[in-house]
């Protein structure tokens, strides 16, 4: 199990337990986290699964690909240096405790 903490724009914290093998996007949508739309179902095509990764965790994620990089430019909310697409964050046991902030909008 990998626990992930989502922080909503209003400061509300939600902690979910992911089974560990899925993407952060899938973990979020299957646990009813509203702030992740994931319109393309995780195919890296829609940029509606945008998250801000807590600085402490940023370096521990696998680097982003060029597709993800380009898509983030089109994300609805402001792109920041710690922006990622949650469908491209593959969960591993090492990411237990990961903190992800949700943007104020996805479209």
């Amino acid at each position, binding site marked *: 199990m990998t626990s992930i903490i989502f922080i909503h724009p209003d400061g509300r914290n939600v902690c979910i337990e992911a089974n560990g093998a899925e993407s952060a996007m899938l973990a979020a*949508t299957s646990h009813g986290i509203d702030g992740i739309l994931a*319109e393309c179902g995780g195919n890296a*095509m829609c940029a509606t699964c945008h998250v801000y990764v807590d600085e402490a965790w940023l370096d521990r994620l696998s680097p982003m690909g060029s597709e993800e990089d380009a898509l983030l430019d*089109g994300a609805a909310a402001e792109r920041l240096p710690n922006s990622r697409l949650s469908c491209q964050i593959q969960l591993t046991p090492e990411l237990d405790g990961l903190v992800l902030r949700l943007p104020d909008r996805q479209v």
Partner: protein
Amino acid sequence: MSAGISSAPMQVSGSKPPSVPHVDIDPFAIDFFDDLYPAQEALREAGSVVYLDKWNVYGVARYAQVHAVLNDPQTFCSSRGVGLSDFKKEKPWRPPSLILEADPPAHTRTRAVLSKVLSPAVMKQIRDRFAAAAEAKVDELLRRRHIDAIADLAEAYPLSVFPDAMGLQQEGREHLLAYAGVVFNAFGPPNELRQTAIERSAPHQAYVAEQCQRKNLTPGGFGACIHAFSDSGEIRPDEAPLLVRSLLSAGLDTTVNGLGAAVYCLARFPDEMARLRANPSLARNAFEEAVRFESPVQTFFRTTTREVEIGGHMIGEGEKVLMFLGAANRDPRRWDEPDRYDITRKTSGHVGFGSGIHMCVGQLVARLEGEVVLAALARRGVAIEIDGPVKRRYNNTLRGLESLPITIKPA
């Protein structure tokens, strides 16, 4: 139509494993289109994979298998055609698509170009224009009150924005829907729908071939953007016209049927229309749910590149597999109350736009059109009532209506 299913060990032809349930449903017959849902259920319940005797192909109709086939392009390839016709055995009716009917690595290159041409960043630039056109269209329809939701909205709106966004000339645009009708009929088997469509296709093909040329595409449009990628060497100059053709084939009729589906849903389920009026920000999801619910693109094929197991059954190399996207989108194994149109449903994961490497590259355009039209209806406080006979339009791949007479008025 008979929805008969048999395990038919006697009539199995040679190599077919006898355990695959044989189904004598013709998924390209008019009576199938007319009474879709019992037949889709029969296909899903027959097994995780079925054999369709009518056309000698395998079929998958459950969500899990459809999703799995879509996401294994190495085993289930597209380069032998995504219709019934096997390009290895039969000459394609037109030069194959460089994206839809291609496999990696060829697909990866062309796909990257179209992804950039239709990226979220580009959508931000066209959004205001598309939204203003939707508002104007809905105002016009409110003045007219009695309209045909297909001709006057589902067709008229995309026709008012998409050809301009492509950068097409004004003349000859009437060929666009006719051409797309041929393309989507041609994925089907050699039935009357396909044969008649191809017989009449020459003028439409000539128009499209001409419009794909660089000199005919207005600067700034999607078409010119595609050609610009041949300057930077990401595609060859001779590839650009065929990639423009992909957007002309797949970019208009699909959204016509997507918008038609959404209006048809909101007309049949007035409670959902009321929820949408109360909260116009649900417009985007209301459109997405209509794409799940009606699945305007019903089916696509793949061809196996090796022997492979699906749900415990072995399938040989070189076999066509028909994916029932519409049936998967209503599979009760995946969806709660699949036959309910619910504009607040969590729709993520539906396969109405496909899934995996070929997942619709124009999905953001489709969602933009759907969102702005439904948001305009919601913000004007519109109520929709069907006030005449609903007529279905028949196509081997696309599902939608020929005519949907409605009254549109303030609620």
